[in-house]
């Protein structure tokens, strides 16, 4: 696929390409976004610049501890999270993991409830608590989808959880490659911790998943957060890399969903309606 053919919904949007902490003043950082090689540099006062292989400059910004770039002409800003403005939150980058699969598969896996008891057994789920109760999926006005009323029994739902309980979840896909979840905080049950996955589409069949956490501060140790998220993602990665085909099929019939896959089915439908092709096998 030539770069000029990439759809505007991706080309003209902002994507994370690096964790800021990976950049130093003395070393260039080279990465790939949507098949385009990009070199990042940090200047002495901490501004970041991004240069494409053909010498042209791409817009670059720093937000949430990550470097974001837009290869086209940005039509909207970087995603905003109101929770990040609350003073008692700990904002932490939680690792960037390269995965040899379409980033759309990585987003779908993040949305998936019924794998928790198997892939994350003993942490985010456990047999025999495998049943997925009915939840609600709606489209978002600004594009994307939201799933509410999700309940999952979790033996160890967060780095500070000490016993298992039914956790309330909300999932939202905000951009084709950006997904976020909210789950009830184990101490302040009425407030929610937030975890976002900013997926960098490297090629149609590979990505880097950048994790971002926004937990309530009390009792949280940033190192423990990173370690927990990376451990969990380490369990997902071999599953993702064994999905065939590597791109996400959007058409009906190649893969069979059940009711528990409501959010995944809605995500695929929305991607198709929005004309997302990079990383997808379109309905044709």
């Amino acid at each position: 696929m030539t770069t000029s053919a990439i759809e505007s919904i991706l080309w003209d949007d902002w994507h994370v390409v690096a964790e800021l902490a990976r950049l130093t003043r003395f070393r260039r950082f080279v990465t790939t976004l949507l098949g385009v090689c990009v070199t990042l540099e940090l200047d002495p006062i901490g501004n970041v610049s991004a240069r494409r292989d053909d010498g042209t400059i791409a817009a670059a910004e720093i937000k949430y501890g990550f470097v974001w770039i837009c290869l086209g002409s940005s039509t909207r800003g970087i995603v905003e999270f109101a929770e990040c403005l609350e003073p008692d939150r700990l904002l932490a980058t939680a690792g960037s993991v390269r995965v040899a699969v379409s980033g759309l598969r990585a987003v779908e896996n993040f949305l998936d409830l019924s794998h928790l008891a198997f892939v994350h057994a003993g942490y985010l789920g456990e047999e025999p608590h495998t049943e997925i109760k009915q939840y609600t999926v709606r489209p978002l006005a600004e594009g994307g989808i939201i799933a509410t009323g999700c309940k999952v029994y979790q033996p160890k739902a967060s780095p500070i959880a000490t016993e298992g309980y039914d956790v309330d979840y909300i999932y939202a896909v905000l951009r084709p490659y950006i997904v976020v979840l909210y789950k009830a905080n184990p101490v302040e049950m009425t407030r929610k911790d937030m975890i976002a996955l900013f997926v960098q589409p490297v090629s149609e069949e590979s990505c880097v998943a950048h994790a971002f956490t926004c937990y309530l501060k009390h009792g949280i140790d940033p190192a423990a957060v990173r370690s927990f998220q990376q451990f969990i993602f380490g369990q997902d990665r071999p599953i993702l890399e064994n999905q065939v085909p590597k791109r996400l099929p959007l058409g009906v019939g190649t893969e069979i969903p059940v009711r528990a896959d409501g959010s995944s089915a809605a995500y695929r439908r929305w991607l198709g309606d929005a004309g997302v092709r990079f990383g997808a096998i379109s309905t044709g």
Partner: protein
Amino acid sequence: MARTPGNIIARWFPVARSEEVISRHVVQTQLLGQEIAVWRDDAGSVNAWENRCPHRGVRLSIGFNTGTELRCQYHGWRYATGNGQCTFIPAHPGQKPSSAIRANVYGSIEQYGFVWVHLGQQQTDTPALPTLTAQHAIALRSIFVEAPPSAVAEALLRGYRFSADPAHPQGSPGEILMSAASVVAHDAYILTATAATHDADASVTFLLQPMTESQTVIHGLLHVEGVGTERLTVLRHHNSQMTAFRDAVEGARRANSGKPVAVQYP
């Protein structure tokens, strides 16, 4: 006695040695570009399925063989031995899975020490299994070669030497020289050659498994009636001869192309 391969989809190919397909394991292999998960149930029956869970596409070869079912690693869906019918979806434990949810099952049979698979429609075009001599047969180590089956067959026919009596390889009664003259039967995927002398009833059959257009597995079956041979000695001899053969074939291909042969996936 050259035969044309006919419809390649409706033809049996060996995809694994029976002894590799051990209890409670899942073997991953490939035939004509199609990945296959091969597993044996506790009753001894072998299954050969498309290596892909129908739900979300995860390879079934990383799944768990329970002895009666194959359980997918991703969401714990279970598929029954035999027809591949999905029997249990843990996300909806109270519901019987739709009969439409089943693994894609290929025709498979165990014969001559191998698991054979064909990719055709089972009801309409189950092919006939090639007739081989099974008496006193030893299944040799299967060797993977980074080369198309046609190139492998051609190289074997250029004079591959093998002895059923490795203690006396040169000119011994058991020596088998594969050549256009000594090969008694072959088509594009099966080559049989007999010993040079007639006082020993020894022959070797090589069965080629086309994994992809550029990758081949050479399976071997040796008949050694009348030749006093230690099994282990023969297997070691086969291993060293075949390793040298593979290195030569792959080396020649690399030299010709100037770069490693690309691995092709469907």
